[in-house]
């Protein structure tokens, strides 16, 4: 029990301790704004001292408001002036504003704000101290003086570095306490006289901007004022150089002369010799230099060189300088740089650069071997292109931009050691533009060639396109045609067959061939299992079928929507109606792949039309109890019909039809007639009247947009047919309303359907009766509708088969719809 008690006590204690520990973490202490300061009246910074952080990470935020506004802003820049500071740049600094500044410390537990600080920028200006203070003693007319120089304080914002500062300089002997202050003014240098010789002085400088505060004093500089008793400072050997690997020169920089005239002596010793020599020639290379002529120049030998400065007070020797002349060769720049533009025939011009080695360098003997490097750039260019050319003194440049002016320079260097010479003087060369013209020619040729290739490609695409697409998108299963005499079709008479298929020489033969192939495909598909409906079977194909009047968008989804499809088909039909044979040819000449589609579509249209014409006679009309007296003219229309019928179960002798066709009329005339028909039909549609019409389009009616298969009851069907003007055969629509309504047959709700033949007048006029139940009419181009309707009406199989054939044609245009699958009709029987 005791143990338990103690342990529980311990636990309690621990808890208490932890609680204390927790309470040890608190909101941060109060920060304090130490100072605010502007270096140059255009910007300013404030620094603060953080309070205790409360044992947690603490964020500091500086807020400020202006006397002119109510708003609070946060510090624009915490970084520039270091930690715990805020920098107000030019845009945030207004000399006419008083700023109310607060710093808030925040940690997890809470926050604490400093006392506000009011800042008037003008009153807090204090520049940084001047920099780069340097001191020098000089003697003028026997009087020693001190020459002090410095630079204004650097600013963070370099662009505003144009302030005028006032400077003050203070100096004192090193061992004294009192400073002597000299007001300098706005200059950054100062001459101080009346100095004690032999005393070391300490110098500082500070500056002030307008009426602000003085800056801090700059860092101290010390200088020994020579007392006239001192020797000169030791000189420094700057460099030695041999321009031609035969002689060399060394230069030195004297130190302070100690206030007395000073002599400089160069002394050297050579490797392996104890003897010290003096410079042989102080003059040739100018002041403070020593020239070693050929006699005094040895190679593969180290020179130990020193310079001694001597005045009457004493002397001082420089640090030794070790020189092996082999390694200090720096030639003069190459000379005689010439630029020549060569223009050989049949080739691009090129630039030949040539130059000579520097005259001093004896390259011929082989004593000195030089290597060259050249650089060039366009006159306005920024970057040099550098080319190392080895020992050659000539270089050819081939790839230069024509029409530009180039700057060329060359320098040289000994083959192993030493350093590069200065660059030779700039040479300019203008590259002529004439080979731009050649380029142009090349480009033109390239362009022509590529466009030719494009043309050929597109041409082949046009020729092969249909097959390719048929290959990529396999043929839609065609209708299953009963009773077709395949044997007949297979056993030759291809010409007859061809003509029977509707290639009446109107579309070009190539298209005819394709059409023929299509028909054969239909034949082949007889064996296939036919699917009821592939609604979205081949939308892409569908899209391609769109006549050019329609944009591709409208084609999309047309498979899904029968009404749209019919619309499209209508347009397809409308197209040929406006075309003469000539027009068709024009269309063919379109180079785009659409061409074949369009023409084919036209051809199909015509076939449909032909077919429809015939069907009017052969199927629909009988169905609507039209008398079976066909004018002779129909005989050639029946070519199409014959074909259709062949495909159906009707026992029509196709051969006889074909023969009949050939006997009757030339195909050309047929085509013309068809066109004529179509044109007239179009007119009729446009005029909304049937006055004097020689042709009428077969019009089918359909209930609405819904799939006919799903809604067979609504199917309705009327074909209004054509015919010959001279025979005055016509189908009249019997409206209750104005005939103008027919114009809107594609618009749901406003259209009429004609389901019944009202009367037949004079053997020529068929009067149709609108179906009051149905408010939608569409054109013949909806074969599926036709079929459905036929089915619904329980018409003869003949009719049905006719309907089936129509889709087989139209399907190629509207491949996605697939309405005509016979199997789907079968149940309706």
């Amino acid at each position, binding site marked *: 029990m005791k143990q338990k008690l103690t342990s529980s006590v311990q636990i309690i204690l621990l808890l208490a301790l932890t609680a204390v520990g927790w309470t040890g973490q608190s909101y941060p202490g109060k920060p304090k704004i130490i100072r605010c300061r502007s270096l140059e009246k255009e910007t300013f910074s404030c620094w603060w001292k953080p309070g205790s952080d409360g044992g947690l990470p603490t964020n500091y935020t500086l807020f400020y408001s202006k006397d002119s506004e109510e708003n609070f802003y946060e510090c624009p820049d915490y970084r520039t002036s270091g930690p715990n500071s805020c920098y107000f740049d030019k845009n945030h600094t207004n000399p006419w504003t008083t700023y109310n500044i607060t710093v808030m410390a925040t940690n997890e537990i809470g926050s604490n704000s400093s006392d506000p600080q009011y800042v008037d920028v003008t009153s807090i200006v204090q520049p940084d101290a001047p920099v780069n203070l340097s001191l020098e003693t000089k003697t003028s007319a026997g009087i020693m003086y001190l020459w002090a120089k410095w630079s204004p304080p650097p600013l963070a914002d370099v662009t505003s570095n144009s302030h005028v500062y006032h400077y003050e300089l203070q100096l004192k002997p090193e061992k004294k306490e009192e400073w002597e202050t000299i007001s300098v003014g706005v200059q950054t240098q100062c001459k101080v006289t009346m100095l004690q010789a032999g005393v070391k002085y300490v110098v500082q400088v500070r500056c002030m901007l307008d009426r602000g505060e003085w800056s801090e004093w700059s860092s101290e500089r010390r200088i020994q004022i020579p007392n006239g008793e001192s020797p000169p400072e030791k000189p420094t050997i700057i460099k030695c150089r041999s321009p031609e*690997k*035969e002689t060399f020169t060394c230069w030195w920089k004297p130190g302070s002369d100690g206030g007395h005239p000073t002599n400089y002596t160069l002394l050297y010793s050579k*490797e*392996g010799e104890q003897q010290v020599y003096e410079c042989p020639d102080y003059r040739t290379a100018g002041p403070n230099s020593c020239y070693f002529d*050929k006699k005094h*120049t*040895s*190679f*593969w*030998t*180290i020179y*130990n060189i020193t310079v001694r400065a001597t005045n009457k007070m004493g002397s001082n020797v420089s640090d*030794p300088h*070790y020189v*092996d002349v*082999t390694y200090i060769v720096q030639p003069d720049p190459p000379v005689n740089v010439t630029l020549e533009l060569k223009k050989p025939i049949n080739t691009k011009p090129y630039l030949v650069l040539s130059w000579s080695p520097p005259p001093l360098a*004896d*390259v*011929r*003997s*082989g*004593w000195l*071997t030089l290597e060259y490097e050249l650089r060039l750039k366009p006159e306005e260019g920024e970057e040099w292109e550098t080319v190392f050319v080895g020992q050659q003194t000539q270089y050819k440049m081939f790839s230069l931009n024509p029409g530009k002016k180039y700057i060329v320079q060359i320098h040289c260097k000994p*083959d*192993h*050691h030493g350093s590069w010479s200065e660059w030779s003087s700039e040479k300019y060369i203008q590259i002529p533009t004439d080979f731009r013209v050649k380029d142009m020619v090349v480009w033109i040729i390239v362009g022509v060639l590529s466009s030719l290739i494009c043309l050929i490609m597109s041409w082949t695409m046009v020729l092969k396109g249909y097959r390719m697409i048929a290959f990529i998108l396999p043929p839609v299963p065609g209708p299953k045609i009963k009773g077709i005499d395949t044997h007949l079709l297979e056993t030759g008479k291809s010409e007859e067959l061809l003509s029977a298929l509707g290639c009446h020489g109107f579309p070009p033969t190539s298209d005819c061939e394709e059409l023929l192939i299509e028909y054969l495909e239909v034949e082949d598909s007889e064996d296939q299992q036919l699917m009821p409906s592939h609604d979205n079977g081949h939308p892409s194909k569908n899209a391609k079928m769109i006549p050019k009047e329609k944009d591709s968008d409208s084609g999309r989804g047309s498979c899904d929507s029968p009404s749209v499809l019919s619309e499209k088909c209508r347009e397809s039909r409308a197209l040929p109606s406006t075309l003469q044979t000539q027009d068709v040819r024009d269309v063919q000449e379109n180079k785009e792949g659409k061409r074949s589609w369009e023409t084919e579509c036209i051809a199909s249209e015509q076939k449909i039309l032909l077919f429809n014409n015939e069907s009017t006679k052969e199927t629909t009309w009988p169905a609507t109890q039209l008398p079976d007296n066909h004018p002779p003219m129909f005989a050639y229309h029946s070519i199409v019909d014959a074909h259709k019928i062949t495909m159906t179960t009707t026992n029509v002798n196709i051969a006889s039809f074909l023969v009949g066709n050939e006997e009757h009329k030339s195909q050309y005339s047929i085509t013309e007639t068809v066109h004529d028909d179509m044109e007239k039909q179009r007119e009729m549609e446009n005029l909304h009247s049937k006055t004097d019409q020689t042709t009428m389009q077969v019009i089918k009616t359909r209930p609405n947009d819904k799939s006919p298969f799903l809604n067979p009851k609504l199917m309705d069907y009327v074909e209004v047919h054509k015919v010959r003007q001279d025979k005055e055969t016509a189908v009249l629509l019997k409206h209750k309303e104005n005939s103008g309504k027919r114009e809107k047959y594609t618009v749901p709700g406003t259209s009429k359907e004609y389901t019944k033949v009202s009367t037949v007048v004079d053997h020529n006029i068929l009067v149709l009766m609108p179906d009051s139940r149905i408010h939608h009419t569409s054109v013949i181009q909806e074969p599926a509708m036709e079929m459905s309707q036929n089915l619904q009406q329980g018409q003869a199989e003949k009719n049905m088969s006719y309907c089936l054939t129509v889709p087989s044609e139209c399907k190629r245009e509207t491949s996605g719809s697939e309405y005509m699958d016979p199997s789907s009709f079968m149940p309706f029987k």
Partner: protein
Amino acid sequence: SRTKTQSTEQCLLLVVLLVSNMLLTKEGVTSLPICPNGSVNCQVSLGELFDRAVKLSHYIHFLSSEIFNEFDERYAQGRGFITKAVNGCHTSSLTTPEDKEQAQQIHHEDLLNLILGVLRSWNDPLIHLASEVQRIKEAPDTILWKAVEIEEQNKRLLEGMEKIVGRVHPGEIGNDAYSQWEGLPSLQLADEDSRLFAFYNLLHCLRRDSHKIDNYLKLLKCRLIHDSNC
């Protein structure tokens, strides 16, 4: 028609023969400059020999400079070796031309012999350098392989120079004056500073002498092959 085919075959054969003949003659042409017809002394020209020697000496000096610079950068910084290196090359006993005038005045046979002497003087130290350099603490590969390469190339150059000397003045190949190198113990000193200085000095001398040889060879080439008009 048979005669026709025969004639075409003959033509073809003729063409093939002609072409192959041309090719063969062309191949023969390429070897002409070096070995003229029936020449007994079928050998490389002196100019070619000098070209090769100069290329080799250039390469050796390039390597020597590199190895010296690398060593200097790595081991000699702040040790003031240069001040001690004065007067320390074992080949300094061979009196060589020290400037252009001297080099131009000396007879080319003497200069050739001097080159031979310097090259021979380096045979021994280079062998030791190549082996001893591997004992330098953390010696980088670049230094190691250069030491080996310099040794090999120096031998090749020596062979080439002997050939040139034999060509320039036949029969007088003797004169094997060269400086003995006694520096092996210094390369094996226990005191690292002294040992590194020994290496430094040797490499410094190698750089200098290889430059000498290169310079002399270029001079000789211009003098003997180009008649002092390079």
